[in-house]
């Protein structure tokens, strides 16, 4: 390892330089006795607190929470925030994550007291706005999926998957049909197999053919009456729409299994093709992908599911109902669903997310949603074309010729010929001010780079990104060490992840005290 890596031109995007080593947690700031909180007076006749709560039930050691004034609190977290890269200030082509623009309108409407300050157990008669919104969102999602019934309850994609596989189980059990296996392609996202296990099924992997689609022979071989379900992403995680989808559906339905649609890639096909029409029984949506929830550094999300007629009786409770009355429609929550799989969580799901995605659908309408998918596909193909033009040899497309909303390049030739890995490219892109694409996924492509530009990016940004990738490749041709030691301009550089896992320090040690 050389000590003086060639550095890119010094950069500084901020007017508040923070020394790189100045990393103190909130627990390392403040002082004993400082506070941001001021407690209001109780205002009631004071009772002896130790009579109200006996000593035996009281805590002995205090929770040593931070002790800071409000200005210290604000400054700590504002400064900390700037150690993040974010979508609002840079391109984020993280494949499979659909990092599309998050309209600020959504934060405004979600914050309205009539939404934000609604208690989830409010009498439905006094929650008609919330229920109507959820009803409308269910109908819209059902229309996008091409399926008749929707539950908004799951909290994220993987939660939707779990709901979906449990629905499959309930469906089979209702027919006295105890099945044991669930098929997932080897391109599947990790949540799919993990979900299968959690739902008590065995995972059986299905291979991928040379075109990047499901290996039909392998599928034919594995599909039998012990198969409860096939979970599929379509377009799949290679960004390719499976041309055999109709046959796949036929095969799966032929053995009485259900077909599950992992909706993470729905952004490719909204208004152009519908999972229900492809033969899927159960679909989950990632509202935080296709329907633009801000991702919050790892959530919250929301993972509604849409299902076919035959799955509908098993949906989680409660279910939203709508009845016509002389005074107009009335919405309610129905808990009386004898075949339901039950609850997956408290209350009615991540309503705050529903408000955002509903606002999004209202903004775009039918045409706008289709347009979004079309431009997502256009942008992906444009970026792909630009990259092929610039670095087609070093970073070839892994499968196929065109793509849907995302595509996978292989960093294999680059690694072989230039000596830098996909990871190095990713790290060097940080110095160019870009978030790297998803790397090393899907697993079946060596040195994979999964790129998803989304529809909300400009052509100029795609060009700049393609040129940055090309410049990293060109630079590596001169000196691979540059990328191998990148990044240089970030608050920290490559971190010791192995050490972190080996010797986990997952909380701050605090000084003991007797107070």
């Amino acid at each position, binding site marked *: 390892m050389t000590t003086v890596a060639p550095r890119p031109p010094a950069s500084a995007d901020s007017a508040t330089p923070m020394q790189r080593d100045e990393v103190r947690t909130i627990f390392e700031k403040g002082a004993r006795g400082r506070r*941001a909180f001021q407690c209001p007076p109780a205002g*009631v006749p004071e009772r002896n*607190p130790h009579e*109200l*709560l006996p000593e*035996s039930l*009281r805590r002995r050691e205090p*929770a040593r*929470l931070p002790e800071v004034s409000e200005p210290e609190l604000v400054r700590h977290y*504002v400064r*900390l925030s700037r*150690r*993040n890269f974010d*979508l609002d200030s840079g391109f984020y082509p*993280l494949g499979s994550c659909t990092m599309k*623009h998050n309209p600020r309108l959504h934060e*405004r409407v979600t914050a309205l*007291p*009539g939404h934000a300050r609604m*208690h*989830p157990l*409010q009498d439905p008669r006094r*929650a*008609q706005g919330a229920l*109507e919104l959820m009803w409308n969102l269910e109908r819209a999602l059902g*229309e996008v999926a091409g399926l008749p019934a929707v539950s908004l309850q799951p909290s*994220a994609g993987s939660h939707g998957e779990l709901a979906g596989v*449990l629905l499959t*189980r309930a469906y089979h059990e209702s027919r006295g049909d105890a099945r044991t296996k669930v098929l997932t392609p080897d391109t599947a*996202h990790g*949540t799919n197999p993990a*979900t299968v*296990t*959690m739902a008590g099924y065995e995972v059986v992997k299905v291979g991928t053919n040379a075109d990047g689609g499901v290996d039909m022979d392998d599928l034919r071989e594995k599909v039998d009456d012990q198969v409860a379900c096939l979970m599929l992403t379509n377009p799949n995680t290679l960004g390719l*729409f499976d*041309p055999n989808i*109709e046959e796949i559906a036929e095969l799966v339905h032929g053995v009485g299994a259900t077909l599950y649609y992992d909706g993470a890639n729905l952004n490719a096909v909204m208004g152009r*093709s519908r999972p229900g029409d*492809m033969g899927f029984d159960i679909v989950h949506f990632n509202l935080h992908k296709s329907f633009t929830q801000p*991702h*919050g*550094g*790892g959530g*919250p999300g929301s993972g509604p599911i849409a299902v076919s007629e035959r799955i509908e009786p098993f949906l989680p409770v409660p279910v939203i109902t709508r009845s016509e009355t002389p005074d107009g429609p009335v919405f309610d929550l129905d808990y009386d669903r004898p075949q339901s799989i039950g*609850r997956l*969580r408290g209350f009615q799901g991540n309503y705050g*997310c529903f*408000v955002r995605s509903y606002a999004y659908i209202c903004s*775009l309408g*039918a045409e706008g949603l289709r*347009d979004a998918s079309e431009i997502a596909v*256009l*942008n992906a*193909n444009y970026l792909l*074309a630009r990259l092929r033009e610039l670095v087609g040899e070093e970073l070839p497309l892994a499968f196929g010729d065109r793509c849907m909303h995302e595509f996978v390049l292989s960093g294999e030739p680059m690694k072989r010929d230039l000596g830098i890995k996909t990871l190095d490219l990713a790290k060097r892109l*940080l110095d160019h001010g870009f978030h790297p694409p998803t790397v090393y996924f899907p697993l079946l492509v060596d040195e994979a780079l999964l790129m998803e530009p989304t*529809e*909300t990016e400009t052509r100029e940004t795609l060009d700049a990104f393609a040129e940055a990738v090309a410049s990293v490749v060109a630079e590596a041709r001169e000196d691979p060490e540059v990328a191998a030691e990148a990044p240089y301009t970030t608050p920290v550089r490559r971190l010791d992840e192995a050490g*972190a896992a080996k010797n986990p320090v*997952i909380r701050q040690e605090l000084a003991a005290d007797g107070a």
Partner: protein
Amino acid sequence: MSRYTAVTPEDLEQMLATIGAASIDELFEQVPEGVRLGRELDLPEGMSEQEVYGHLLELSRANTSADDEITFLGAGMYDHYAPAVIDMLLGRSEFLTPYTPYQPEISQGSLQVMFEYQTAISELTGLPVSNASVYEGPSAVGAAGYLAKLANGKSKFVVSRGLHPHSRETLRTLSHGYGIEVVEVPLSGGVTDPDAWAAAIDGDSCAVFFQQPNFLGIVEDAAALAEAAKNSPAVVVGSYDPIPLGILASPGECGVDVAVGEGQTLGNRLDFGGPSFGFFAATAAYLRKMPGRIAGETTDVDGRRGFVLTLQTREQHIRREKATSNICTSQALNALAGVVYLSWLGRDGIVELAELLLQRTAYARERLSGVEGVEELFDGPVVREFAVDLDVADTAAVERVISRCQDRGINPGYAVGRDYEEFPTALLVAITEQRTAEQIDMLAETLAEAMAEERAAAGVGEAAS
């Protein structure tokens, strides 16, 4: 052109030329004809920003929110005051819009927040290990069950009926998948029946679950409940309300193995039930069985302190079908609200706040017990919520009483009979620092009026007065 996209006709032309395609339709040729939609979706037309705002405002006005009535409704989510700093910080693009921190070099903000959050939850629970959040309360209980299954593979969950009904239902839904039986232990005198609890725990017990304070608001003897499971293989899981933990014996002090709970009260909105977050803490023994993200401290190549996602071999993206959980997207932003809230409260503040709740709740309990036809359901210690029994016919009557109060601008609480047939006429009343003594007095008066009305309608008591 949509306001969120940027492809002008010139852009389109040039981009298609670069791609070498004649049209956008050509790009969709991958989609087999048989599954092309071939029509526009049947959805309303798109709207301008101001129209969408207007529509959503109108819907919001068709709701009665905690701004529109004085609410004593709790039962799992509570109307606490969240300080304005939280809005500001959560609204910052830098926290709001990044994805999960897969690239630590440019995600130190989110990662350090996770580390701080884990520390705060660890302190609060008195347990050494916390993850960076799970979805929310009841599913956190479910996740604890799955951890127990992975840990010991036993066949039975023993569950106190003091556990929130949503948690019990969620546990049942999830455990059905991997085949664990759920046995419920009844309440006695308002707390988990200690004898039934001890009797239910045996060598097949995979995990035992209780809630603190329990659904009726009563503080359980958590140490005793944990102790009862000591000689069984069972993982002891407690579902905790975090603010009362300012003064209640911590899970760590009580011998609890896994402490979970609903994080809404820690700086998150009511939001009609979500998003909030679930916290998940455990003893060191379960570190490598934990679900979800965990941030760890490390150093970079230059020796600088930094944070990374760690112990990822537990997770679905690495371990796939062998993962400890399928969770991926979680509740990072809500957990940020949580750690900011806890830092805002601070070490002394959380004690003061919990003591305030203790005092006001005691006052409210006394005030309501003085109302004609209303009496304390149980007399165990409570911190922030308590149940009274109404001298009315049935749960429907309780709901009518509630509604009569609401017509007067006060939401008196939750009809316990909706979930507990054994307490058909109980009303669960929640107190927060936002409910003043004056409002508690109003509640007592309003409840008295509503009770009188209900009893008059039903022909009970001094019918005509």
